[in-house]
């Protein structure tokens, strides 16, 4: 009898474990899809007069937030904003002359932004300042990721932020710490391009 009880208990525990794993996998399928973009533009470094390369993975982000001041209001808000993030990747190049990078450099990155990414801003200006902003709309209030591609005549910048970004928290940073209102809510609702 004890053997039967033990076997049943073992099966019960195993089935709970299996069920939990299955729920875990199905609950975050899009999060799994949302991979880091290939933003390797190292071939531009030799031509750039200034290069910024920032890679902040989850653990480094956690470490950075520990060193944000809990006293200063703006840093406290940034800490709240960063809490749900899993990665921030920035590649920025400044050049001394125009056309130092090719359109294919930019296109290669844009091509990776199919579904579930959604382009919310597309600016093609007469001054050749081109900006694209993509988001991964996870829910009405939460953005699961953000990508900005700013291709200017003498500057190319790619920013990818992965993780949950509550829109109200972005708005709360309005005007603080040099972070202007990004107007994601407005832009999304208007479908501005």
């Amino acid at each position, binding site marked *: 009898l004890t053997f039967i009880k033990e076997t049943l208990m073992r099966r019960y525990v195993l089935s709970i474990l299996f069920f939990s794993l299955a729920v875990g996998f199905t609950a975050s399928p899009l999060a799994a899809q949302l991979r880091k973009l290939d933003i390797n533009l190292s071939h531009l470094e030799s031509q750039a007069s200034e290069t*910024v390369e*920032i890679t*902040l993975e989850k653990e*480094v*982000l956690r*470490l*950075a*937030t*520990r*060193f*944000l001041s809990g006293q200063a209001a703006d840093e406290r808000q*940034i800490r709240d904003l*960063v809490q749900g993030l899993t990665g*921030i990747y*920035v590649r*920025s190049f400044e050049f001394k002359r125009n056309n130092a990078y090719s359109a294919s450099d930019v296109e290669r990155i844009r091509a990776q932004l199919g579904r579930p990414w959604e382009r919310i*801003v597309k*600016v093609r*200006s007469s001054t050749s*300042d081109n*900006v694209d*902003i993509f988001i991964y709309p996870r829910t009405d209030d939460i953005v699961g990721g*953000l990508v*900005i591609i*700013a291709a*200017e005549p003498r500057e190319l*910048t790619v*920013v990818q*932020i992965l993780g949950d970004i509550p829109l109200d928290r972005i708005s709360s940073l309005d005007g603080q*710490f*040099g*972070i*202007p*209102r*990004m*107007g994601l809510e407005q832009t999304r609702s208007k479908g*501005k391009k």
Partner: protein
Amino acid sequence: MKLDETELRNALRRKPAPPELADRIMMQIEDGERMRSRFSPRMLAAAALVFLTLGIGTVHEVRSELERRRGEEARQQLLLALSITAEKASLARRLIGSD
């Protein structure tokens, strides 16, 4: 080689010790005792504990300092990343506004 009796007797004859030998032996014995009395087992254990504590303290301090430097660097990078993001978002807004 064969030794005759006279040679054997000469070889085994008692020779007086050098005059300074006794002093040297006594000095060595005294030195050993002095060392033993200066470093008792308790003192040695205490010294070991102090060195261990200092060692652990130093390692902890070095690790904390490295962690602080890494954290400060990460903080600077985070702020720079957010600042660049904000700058480019601002550029987009400006371009949209100018249209």
